[in-house]
């Protein structure tokens, strides 16, 4: 029997009952489709996170106050371990540059009758350097603004839209808390960072923020490593431990009252996130393909029983054991191949739809597909067809022609 005849016989077997074939394929369609969709979302999210990391700059670092003991809730605002003196000494280190202390708060901002709540960032000129954040209108906060305690403000696009609408904000006076600030510029949009908009911000000089809040500590510090992260992080830890009187020769992060992160670590976190995602997708794929495979085996067994007389006839006409085995195996593989293709097309279509919806929330989300995942999902579907097709195909091939012909 030629291979083309095997294919034609198998195709005939599938097309004789299209609805049943489609239902049989459903498990495979869902399995492959969900893998393609999930991996496409994974790729897109990877793009978003990578974009954020590269926007931070390749050598970007950040110091948070607090201890890693007790988990993330111990992080961030409210902790007062990072002092102005710490900053002054950090600035002296040779292994880091653009040291930018940040005083952070949130509050209402008003322009005329427009009032809007915004995130208020007290920053130095170095902040815009290490964040790669340019102004799209007007100018950035510079050293003379900070040194001169000038009440000026730089608004991010969302904050500008809320306060000014279509109006040109440059030179206008806004009120933040009980003080008035003159708007000097608008920053480039950052999109969202960790599912929170980074564009509803108002930047004011660090010195002014200190004055207004009376805060004796900074909320966090950003900077750039001049050489390797390892050396820079060691230097920062050594300096802060010495200043804070912490003895920590074993480098136990629980003993520190600060946490240093680098964009390299963010990359590593991303790596572990995508590893987790891959495992997750693989699990989904494995489960759904096994379920799909069992479905196929089930229907193929029914089909073999239903077609016992046909098998008997084919054997009476000269079909060998191998001919029948191949015909039924080809049928089940064909079911998984067609199911896999439908799943791939469906998964890509859903990924495109997902991208168009998520884009409204997360501007940097773009449609991306993971070709290796698609290929692996498809191959796994084909292997499923082979593995789960073997039992029914063997059962068909082993039928005695005479008994099969007599089957009622």
């Amino acid at each position: 029997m030629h291979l083309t005849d095997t294919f034609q016989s198998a195709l005939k077997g599938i097309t004789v009952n299209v609805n049943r074939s489609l239902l049989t394929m459903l498990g495979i369609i869902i399995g492959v489709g969900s893998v393609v969709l999930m991996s496409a979302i994974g790729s897109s999210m990877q793009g978003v996170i990578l974009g954020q990391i590269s926007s931070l700059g390749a050598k970007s670092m950040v110091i948070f106050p607090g201890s890693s003991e007790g988990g993330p809730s111990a992080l961030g605002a409210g902790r007062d371990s990072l002092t102005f003196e710490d900053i002054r000494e950090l600035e002296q280190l040779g292994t880091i540059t653009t040291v930018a202390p940040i005083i952070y708060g949130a509050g209402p901002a008003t322009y005329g009758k427009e009032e809007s709540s915004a995130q208020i960032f007290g920053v130095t000129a170095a902040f815009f350097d290490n964040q790669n954040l340019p102004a799209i209108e007007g100018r950035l906060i510079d050293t003379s603004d900070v040194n001169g305690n000038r009440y000026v403000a730089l608004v991010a696009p969302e904050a500008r839209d809320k306060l000014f609408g279509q109006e040109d904000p440059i030179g206008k006076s806004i009120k933040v808390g009980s003080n008035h600030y003159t708007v000097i510029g608008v920053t480039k949009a950052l999109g969202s960072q960790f599912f929170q908009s980074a564009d509803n911000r108002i930047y004011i000089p660090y010195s002014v923020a200190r004055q207004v809040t009376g805060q004796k500590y900074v909320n966090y510090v950003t900077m750039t490593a001049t050489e390797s992260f390892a050396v820079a992080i060691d230097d920062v830890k050594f300096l802060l431990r010495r200043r804070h009187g912490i003895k920590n020769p074993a480098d136990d992060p629980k003993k520190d009252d600060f946490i240093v992160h680098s964009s390299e670590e963010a990359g590593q976190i991303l790596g572990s996130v995508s590893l987790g995602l891959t495992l997750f997708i693989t699990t989904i794929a494995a489960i759904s393909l096994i379920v799909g495979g069992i479905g196929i085996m089930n229907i193929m067994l029914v089909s073999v029983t239903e077609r016992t007389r046909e098998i008997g006839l084919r054997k009476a006409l000269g079909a060998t054991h191998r001919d029948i085995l191949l015909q039924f195996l080809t049928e089940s593989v064909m079911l998984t191949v067609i199911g896999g293709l439908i799943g791939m097309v469906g998964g890509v279509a859903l990924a495109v739809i997902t991208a168009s919806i998520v884009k409204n929330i997360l501007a940097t989300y773009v449609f991306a597909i993971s070709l290796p995942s698609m290929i692996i999902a498809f191959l796994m579907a084909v292997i499923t067809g082979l593995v789960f097709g073997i039992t029914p195909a063997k059962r068909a091939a082993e039928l005695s022609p005479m008994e099969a012909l007599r089957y009622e």
Partner: protein
Amino acid sequence: MADPSVPLIEIQDLSKSYFNDGVETPVLFHLNLKIHKGEFVAIMGPSGSGKSTLMQILGFLDAHTNGEYIFQGEPTQALDDDALARIRATRVSFVFQAFNLLPRTTVLQNVMLPLIYHPTIPSGERQKRAERAIELVGLTPRTDYLSSQLSGGQKQRVAIARALVTNPDVIFADEPTGNLDSASGVAVMQALKKLNDDGHTIILVTHELGTAQHAKRIIRIKDGHVESDTSDFTRLNTESAHNLK
């Protein structure tokens, strides 16, 4: 070319038993038969006599338990499954009582089916051969009909065309008129008779004397033994009449 003096089919002391859960049920006992090329033989007998079992053994669908089956001068005892499949594909063919056509499949495709298992007929020749076989049974206008669109008699003629298409050495017909009305039955038997006139060897299994009478030789089987082997219809008719009394 095969030696014409060598029988096409020869069985010597052939027996067959079925085994169910270790219990032996003998069906055929020490049969001896010779069938030559070009014969039209009817194997007759009541149900349970073993006639269908004999046909299945002769047609390589089932194996015998003891004795010898010599096909075209060659013993068949040692043949493996693949060799038997090859014989079924090239040397023998079948017409069944229940037609056994593939559903939702055209007449042409049904008749072409045996050719996909034929090792030497090129695929380019299949359609031409099938069309010729369909023409021989007078169904050319129905070539593209689905098997379900045909009458019983037409279905059986398609089955005959299918049996014919590989040009086998022998065609086995198992109760070919059993599911047909008498007019269709006559048409089917005439088709088989025509094939025999054209030189095909035909072995017919039936329990109806009327059907068997189309054959040139009748072998009667009863309780697994050959009861009679004759072409004398007169005597058979007398016996039947006697039995009816």
